[in-house]
């Protein structure tokens, strides 16, 4: 009944094909959804909301006056990914994280990729998150990005495109786990529609990934999670993951660096820390090295890292790999380091620092998406077709004064998925953030976080900008 009135727009629709027929891998689920009546559904939605409230699944919006903490909006219609499709995505993600880690090792060592003329020197040295002070420093097992959240969208033809790699502190995985457990509690009947690959081994896999980089191969390392504190937008996730992995969650003031080692203050005195899963940006890690005004970090931490007495995940300086100008070179990186063609496509990108690209960008601002090279989370962005004249002129000035700082891409009208709104189902744009772990082996969590732009027609899925999420089902076969 619910599905009968669903009208897809003129885009790639996840549920129905261009003829309006439900895609085969959604049929089981659609059948079961048809069996629910409006009243039952309403009841289930209320229990979902209550569940999320009780679990405290929240996030924080910066610069919002109406109380900053909100329940993360959840849409109960799951997104389904068939096994064969997922296989290709998974392969592409493994290839990508492999190349990114080789790239990071290279730019912090011999910089062969620059010397061989694949990536211009200016791109790397000009990246805000490049840390020249780490050139020549070693990290355990040459691992830089241990946890990667790569954002994918689907174009008009249903082709998956990489939108960006988040190789610093990607967040959102806790919502994946919470969404799944909520769905199982409130809609157990839907899971009869076919075997769904489980996601619940993620905390154990993450812990194994962290233990893998323990200094000097210590088999029983003390692993902690470093959070900026309760006011951070992802604090819910920090405490959730620490609890799931049974490790301590600490703030900067709980740690102390002495003689090149890092210790945790406990009721029984100091205890040495071996691996820090840090959910705090490079800038705030250590006021002796980075931002002097940071009160979140630990003075002396970077020295301990350099001496190899403590490992950080992700490593310092990974931001050079998720810089949006570097992004444009990832396919070249894959060819250079792995001698392979990229398995996943990405969005064509114009770089403002190239003279001819800049001219094109400035001429076509109203039709392009402009992004600040070093921002993430949907901040520092201009969506040309939706922008006012004043906003466009503001970006024009910014690009002219700082061409290295901006890139532009065509607007990709990415896929939509039926989403429950008042009065039934409507299509809303969705993306997908799978999580990849680079440990002793590479593990990709089946599925990932499907984010939904809840506002009609909006292409912005970030939770900080009014996005919600869905459970994501990767089918076994």
């Amino acid at each position, binding site marked *: 009944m619910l599905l009968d009135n669903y009208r897809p727009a003129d885009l790639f629709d996840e549920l129905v094909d261009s003829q309006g027929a439900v895609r085969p891998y959604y049929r089981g689920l659609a059948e079961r959804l048809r069996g629910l009546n409006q009243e039952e559904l309403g009841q289930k939605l209320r229990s979902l909301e209550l569940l999320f409230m009780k679990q405290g699944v929240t996030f924080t919006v910066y610069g919002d006056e109406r109380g900053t903490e909100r329940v993360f909006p959840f849409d109960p219609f799951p997104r389904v990914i068939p096994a064969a499709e997922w*296989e290709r995505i998974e392969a592409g993600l493994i*290839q990508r994280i*492999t190349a990114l*880690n080789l790239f990071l*090792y290279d730019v912090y060592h011999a910089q062969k990729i620059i010397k061989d003329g694949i990536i211009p020197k200016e791109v790397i040295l000009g990246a805000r998150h490049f840390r020249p002070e780490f050139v020549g420093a070693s990290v355990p*097992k040459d*691992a830089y990005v241990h946890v990667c959240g790569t954002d994918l969208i689907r174009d008009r033809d249903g082709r998956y495109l990489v939108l960006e790699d988040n190789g610093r502190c990607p967040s959102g995985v806790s919502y994946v786990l919470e969404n799944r457990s909520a769905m199982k509690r409130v809609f157990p009947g839907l899971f009869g529609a076919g075997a769904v690959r489980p996601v619940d081994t993620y905390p154990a896999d993450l812990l194994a990934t962290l233990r893998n980089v323990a200094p000097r191969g210590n088999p029983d390392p003390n692993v902690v999670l470093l959070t900026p504190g309760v006011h951070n937008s992802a604090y819910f996730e920090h405490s959730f993951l620490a609890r799931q992995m049974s490790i301590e969650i600490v703030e900067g003031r709980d740690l102390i660096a002495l003689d090149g080692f890092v210790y945790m203050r406990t009721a029984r005195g100091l205890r040495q820390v071996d691996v820090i899963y840090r959910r705090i940006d490079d800038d705030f890690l250590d006021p002796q090295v980075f931002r002097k005004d940071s009160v979140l970090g630990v003075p002396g931490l970077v020295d301990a890292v350099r001496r190899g007495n403590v490992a950080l995940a992700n490593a310092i300086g990974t931001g050079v790999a998720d810089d949006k100008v570097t992004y444009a070179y990832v396919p070249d990186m894959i060819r*250079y*380091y792995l*001698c392979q063609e990229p398995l996943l496509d990405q969005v064509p990108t114009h770089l403002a620092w190239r003279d001819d690209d800049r001219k094109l960008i400035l001429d076509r601002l109203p039709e392009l998406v402009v992004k600040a090279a070093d921002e993430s989370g949907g901040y520092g962005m201009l969506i040309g077709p939706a922008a006012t004249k004043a906003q466009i002129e503001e970006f024009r000035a910014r690009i002219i004064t700082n061409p290295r700082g901006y890139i532009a891409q065509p607007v990709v009208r990415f896929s939509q998925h039926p989403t429950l709104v008042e009065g039934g189902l409507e299509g809303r744009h969705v993306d997908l953030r799978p999580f990849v772990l680079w440990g002793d082996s590479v593990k990709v969590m089946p599925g990932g976080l499907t984010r939904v732009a809840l506002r009609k027609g909006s292409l912005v899925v970030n939770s900080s900008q009014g996005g919600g999420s869905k459970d994501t089902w990767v089918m076994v076969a």
Partner: protein
Amino acid sequence: MKLRVTHRTEYRYALPVHGNTNELRVTPLTNRRQKSLMHVIRVVPATRLERYHDLHRNPVHRFEVEEPHTALTIEAVSLVETLPGPSGLLADDPSKALLGDESLRESFQPYLLPDGPVHITPQIWRAAIDIEQSPGGIHTMAMELMRTVHAGSTYAPGATHIGTTTEEFFVHRKGVCQDYAHLLLALCRAVGLPARYVCGYVYDARRGEIIGGHASHAWCEVWLPGQGWLGLDPTNGKPVTDAYVAAAVGRDYRDATPVSGSYWGSGDREMRITVHLEAR
């Protein structure tokens, strides 16, 4: 069948080594029997991979770790789609007379000569000729040659070493898949049947059903004129099925070694190989 193969090789060096150069033949081949869907190789310490094809058209990856190190891990993960081979004897079994063809002998010369560990001794030649005399075509003969290797040998890890020749193996008939494969090559080549060595992996669905497949496995392929290469596994006495994934072919073991290389350094070296196959 869709198979996911994880092949890990780990070295530990007692003293730091450097200039460690390696050639890898761990990439599943793409041919009419199998298709490589995805393949990623990860090397720690970090290093760039180069790729080329060797004389046998195997995809080869090469890398060098210049800086001193005490551990090296090579992990190859592949996803392969395989097709079953012919299950019984072919209806049109090609005639043995075709093997006398001059152009065939020329184009398959490397796969017809005794070389390296593949010695054709008078005893091996005698055994092969006896089977060649029986009625039937090439396929029938090849199956019989494989059966004779299988039936007369005992699988015994440790009985032989990497350089054991067919001459040595033929005396006691105790060895591993590599020895079985080399002997079958010698028998086939003795009667003019082009035969090559295959190194790869085998999926043992019911653990323990397949002998010799716990790490990488070795078997043979023989050339059936007009039909192409046919895979035969003498260790198990069976034709190759869709559970087999070929990663390299060659004249013998030397051409198809999964990992081979050299480095500067002295001191002991430990090696650990793990191969894991999973049906998807």
